[in-house]
């Protein structure tokens, strides 16, 4: 789970990492008041989870309160769904450094990266001058030792006071990384001022989803999600991805769903959403179908080949959902694995043709998006015949 910049910086403060004086604002008025308190010049920054805010014009410098007002208005009205801005003192800096901590799966250690060439072009630096990216692997249980900080500081060209301050920032970021169960803790840019001070200009913090049970403080609100349906699914505990195509996928497992996604695209189809019907969700047929239908798809495609997720339970849930929700689009079901004979019977009894081949199911689903795109309310013909809510 990604956090907003202002949330990351709340963690930075706790860990003793210096940040610019700032104020979170939900309205233009609040932004102006914040700037008044902080003193000009300031930077007004959209609080969005996506990267590339600067290039999208969602980070604006303002020298006067009037400019702050305009900047905040512009950002709130940019149509990007910005709900908060961070108004921050514009820090006069000498250099922009880069510092991050992630995990290195192969070595099973943490990876600290740093560069003296921080800022928005860091990825280009990495591609063109990889020697400018310092990399250190750090054992999770030993943690950051003095030599790590010292080695990186010297290679960043920091000495004396700057080196000591860097050690404090790195130890602070490590503390954030560990205590927040982060998969990423990143400061870019890390401002170096003329006075050898180090100040976190930006903050990216991504919390490992599997550790969120330890961090109720990061409970996400609706603004974390791509759509209201995605937020609904989150509240149900159902993994969900929003797309904007025709076929609503109610599939079991990321690997199989990704494969179905590929096969749909091979056939020229498009995907409306992916809703995880596997794992503990296989008993939630009705709610799952409801969420899928909220996308108003041209077809709902159900694919699974389960072991624990019992095919018969899934089939039963689908049949009940169709009876209750009476969907206006076709339902294509390819449900195999444990309990598949019983599932087959349940589907057939309900007038739905059970399919056994993933690729065939995809072809049929894509065909329906074409055949019925202009006549969603009529009974589809053809064999094998998918069920439609209307036919029950």
């Amino acid at each position, binding site marked *: 789970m*990604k956090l907003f910049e202002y949330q990351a910086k709340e963690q930075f403060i706790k860990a003793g990492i210096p940040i610019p004086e700032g104020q979170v604002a939900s309205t233009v008025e609040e932004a102006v008041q914040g700037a008044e308190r902080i003193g000009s010049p300031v930077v007004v920054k959209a609080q969005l989870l996506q*990267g590339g805010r600067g290039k999208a014009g969602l980070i604006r410098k303002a020298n006067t309160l009037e400019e702050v007002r305009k900047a905040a208005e512009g950002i709130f009205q940019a149509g990007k769904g910005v709900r908060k801005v961070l108004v921050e003192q514009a820090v006069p800096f000498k250099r922009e450094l880069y510092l*991050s901590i*992630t*995990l*290195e*799966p*192969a070595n*099973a*250690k*943490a990876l600290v*990266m740093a560069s003296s060439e921080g800022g928005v072009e*860091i*990825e280009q630096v*990495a*591609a063109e001058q*990889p020697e400018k*990216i310092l990399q250190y692997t750090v054992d*999770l*249980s030993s943690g950051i030792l003095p030599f790590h900080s010292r080695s990186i500081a010297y290679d960043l060209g920091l000495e004396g006071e700057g080196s000591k301050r860097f050690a404090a920032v790195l130890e602070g970021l490590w503390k954030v990384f*560990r205590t927040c*169960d982060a*998969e*990423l803790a*990143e400061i*870019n840019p890390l401002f170096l001022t003329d006075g050898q001070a180090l100040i976190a200009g930006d903050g*990216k913090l*991504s919390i*490992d989803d*599997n*550790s969120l*049970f*330890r961090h109720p403080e990061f409970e996400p609100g609706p603004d974390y999600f791509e759509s209201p349906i995605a937020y609904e699914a989150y509240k149900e505990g159902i993994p969900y991805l929003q797309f904007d195509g025709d076929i609503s996928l109610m599939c*079991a*497992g*990321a*690997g*199989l*769903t*990704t*494969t179905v*996604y*590929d*096969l749909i*695209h*091979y056939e020229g189809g498009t995907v409306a959403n992916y809703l995880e019907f*596997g*794992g503990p969700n296989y008993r939630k047929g009705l709610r799952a179908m409801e969420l899928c239908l909220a996308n108003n798809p041209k077809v709902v495609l159900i694919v*699974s*080949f*389960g*072991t*624990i997720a019992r095919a018969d339970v899934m089939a039963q849930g689908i049949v009940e959902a169709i009876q209750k929700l009476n969907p206006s689009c076709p339902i294509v079901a390819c449900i*195999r*694995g*444990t309990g*598949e004979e019983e599932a087959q019977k349940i589907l057939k009894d309900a007038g739905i043709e059970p399919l056994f*081949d*993933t*690729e065939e199911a995809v072809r049929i689903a894509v065909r329906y998006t074409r055949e019925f795109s202009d006549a969603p309310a009529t009974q589809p013909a053809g064999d094998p015949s998918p069920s439609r809510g209307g036919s029950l």
Partner: protein
Amino acid sequence: MSVFIDRNTRVLVQGITGSEGSFWTKHMRGIGTQVVAGVTPGKEGQEVEGIPVYHTVRRALREHEADAAMLFVPPRFTLDAVFEALDSGIRKIVTIADGIPLQEAVQIRRAALSSGARVIGGNTSGVITPGKAMMGMFPYWIERVYKPGTIGVMTRSGSLTNEITAMIVRGGFGVSTLVGVGGDAVPGTRFAEMLPDFQADPDTEAVVIIGELGGTMEEEVAEAMEGGVFTKPLVAFLAGRTAPEGKRMGHAGAIVSGGKGTVKSKIAALERAGAYVADRPSRIGELLRTALGRGTV
């Protein structure tokens, strides 16, 4: 012979009295696995399917010999259970837990590397040698999916496992051993680390790997092939050819991956190393026949 598990492997089941633990213990025995004992704190004295249960791994190992541990333990207790098994000298561990905290997964893998142990998982169905033994959860009773044979399989994806093995069987083959390394970002064991075992296994003629976008495990397989560590035919299926990029891990993710991690880069690396890459599951059988020089039957 087989890879990782066979009829001689003596398996200890941690978390045996839970609903998954007891259900799959029954089936592990059903296929022929030697399950010697179970562990659930507080349940010593009980039995599951006639298998005695102990409070702790140490207590179980005072009464039984075991060389592998199968964990049906919730994700947040997995680190503790893995360390308990390692502490008692067990060097083969499979954990199915889906949702192990990432930094704990890193510590599990580090402990495995430091102690020369192999931890398979989490977020996997486990390991199966069809017709012989399994540690994990596979519907081996569905014959069109789990026919014994000569194709080794490694997969990151649980949901694709049945799909792909069914295609292997439909292609006229069967499976020697299937190892689900698991779908987590930091699996305990990586594809390339299992390749020497499949190379050495006389029952394995070729290997199918089931990969996905993200990470570098598939690229490491290509390296192992180019380095001569693995010389048997290899067929790969990779999910995510048309998928949008996954969530980006800040700049750090981009810097570290350095262009690796996309399905495109994986396919290029594997094909350069001589692997056959299937664009859809139904082509796997055909590619296996080509790879094994049997033409299209």
